[in-house]
């Protein structure tokens, strides 16, 4: 799927959470995945992941999460 020109590829996600760490820092001044707008969840408690944006992401001016991803799970298209 694509969201604001970002293509999500769940298969590529390694669960490193760097997108969340950077997102939370940008928006709250604190590093913490639990404060992040972008969400990474395990599927059926397996280390296979589903990435989703929150409603607030629609207003995000930077999408620092895309820049943070090392694995092409989030890609600008």
């Amino acid at each position, binding site marked *: 799927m694509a969201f604001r020109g970002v293509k999500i590829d769940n298969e590529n996600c390694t669960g*490193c959470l760097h997108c969340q*760490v950077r997102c939370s820092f940008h928006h709250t001044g*604190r590093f*913490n995945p*639990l*404060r992040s707008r972008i969400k990474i969840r*395990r599927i059926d408690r397996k280390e296979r992941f589903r990435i989703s944006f929150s409603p607030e992401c629609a207003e995000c001016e930077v999408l620092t999460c895309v820049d943070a991803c*090392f*694995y092409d799970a989030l890609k600008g298209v």
Partner: protein
Amino acid sequence: MKGINPGLGYAGQILYVDLTKGSTRRKPLEKDFATTYIGMTGFNAKLIYDLVETGTKPLSQENVLVFSAGVLSGTGAPSTPKTEASAKSPATGLYGSSVGGMLGPMLKWAGYDSLVIRGRAERPVYLEVFDDEVNIREAGHLWGRHIVDATNALWDELGDDYYVACIGPAGENLVKFANILVNRMFHFSRTGLGAVMGSKNLKAVAVKGTKGLGVADPEKFMELTSKLFDKIVKHTGREVWNSLGTLISYDMWFGMKPGVGHAPRKNSQEDPSLGAKIFDPETYLKRIKGGSLACLNCPISEKVWVEVKGGRYDNLAFPASDSAGLSVIHGQQLALESFDDSVKFFELCNRYGVDVFSCSATIAFAIELYKRGIIDKVDADGLELEWGDMETIQKLLEKIVLREGIGGVLAEDVGAASKIIGKGSERYAIHVKGIAIPYFEPRVRLCTDVFGAVTSIIGGHGNRAMSLDLMPRERESIIRFCEMAGFPEDAIDRICPPTSLGESVPRLTKWVEDFNTAIWSLGVCTRPPIARVYGLEVCSDLYSAATGIEMSPSELLRAGERIWNLQKAFNMREAGGEATRKNDVFAERMYRDSIYVSGHDKDYEPLEPHLIEKMLDEYYEERGWDVERGIPTKQKLVELGLRSVAEELEKVLP
């Protein structure tokens, strides 16, 4: 003195839990403590030295279990998931410690740099930490359940956001190599810390933190980390690391390259190269690996989601922290016949909560004793022990976990088990200081990781001395490594004397132990594509940017040395004359038997004792220790700011 800035780099508090009293309290992190011991490895060393009373029995309620996070753990710095668990080891009576991942960052997000657990609960409990709320909760319903089950049950109860450090039946049954698994994947595996948790009736620690962490100088911090990420992403080995993980060292494990063969078979008797066709990268990628996983903020995805395709264990799926640790080491020592059996063995160890290294090594030890007639079928509870026989091996594993029959003996780890069995079995016990060491072959290659198993504080594990010489290196590479790690010029001259072609392994070991200790204290991973990109100078810059406290590279390295000496001092205090030079010794087999490597078509001779002794001389000399006894001098301890420790030790080892 101005205090630390809580929530900037450091979380700013230590959480103390007393399970006997059912009480908890928080203490602010003091600046002097923080700057002297840095974090993680240093915090654990100081807390264990101070809080464990001399002579404490490791499985008594007086033992103290500490989990600490690195200074950068939980920030946005690359590859900083590191967390260390420590206690007095029930396997050795010495400093017990294991470095793992991921619990630390969550502890920091909840507001704590360290978690200190003392006492013993009357009934099984688990500890729930949710920011400022700390609860000791009933865990009767979790007791007896294996790690995956118990962790899932806790996630059902508390929510999947919690990071859960859990023990299995082995920890409950006080197996001396029981481990603790975080999110049923990240290990605190060595030195029996799972048994310490079990002895406290503590099934699990579940942590959730919503506070998060800031840094003192965000602009500088982001600039430094962004450069680091860039370098790691561009690292030439990255693609192969991401594909193979630690199987990247396939050639080195199996003796496919000259001079290296680190994975011996059949209790370190047999040719490493014989397993090369079984544990090959092609099978791994085609039939074992389901996907890549990475630790927090790490561009190297060397961990693995296992999803077995076909064969006996079709569809077996679980997360694993290390691809070679998943297969090669125990697969080789037990002479398992397929990659699948090896993966299954690892998965069983994770469920029951035992360290795969010690567990496979004790079973290999038992099989060799059986083959030699030192133990018989009666001793083995009616089992016929055979190399590679997965069915019997699984039965032995289960006996160990339940401490049933022969399992009760093997559950003591190799060193102690050989003393119980006697009958000359000691000569086949492959351990250092009582802790099994099933990999890294000193007869084939004596590099820092291998020599470091002997000088190791915890015994049986050389990873605290990981450098770059697992395979032969050019002199220039060694010098570049030393410069990256910030070693002083005169030390580099001694490590690589201008007149000699090779490096001095003992001298390099000393310095790399201090370096790894320092960067672990920051929570930085010591894997090659990470540590070597960081280097000492960036570590000190990041420390300052994160905490707002100035720390020069040489101060940081000095702290590494201080921490190392303090850990050694703990061993001296607890074991007296046993923690001296005579304890720094390889397993007897290494001095008696040769080993053939078909990949090199070469017979490697047993170690020559006088050469090892000479290496130890050099190592102690480089450490500035008493060379004859292999222990820190009073002068060295005082120089490192450990005067009170020196005075205490004078009473133990005059």
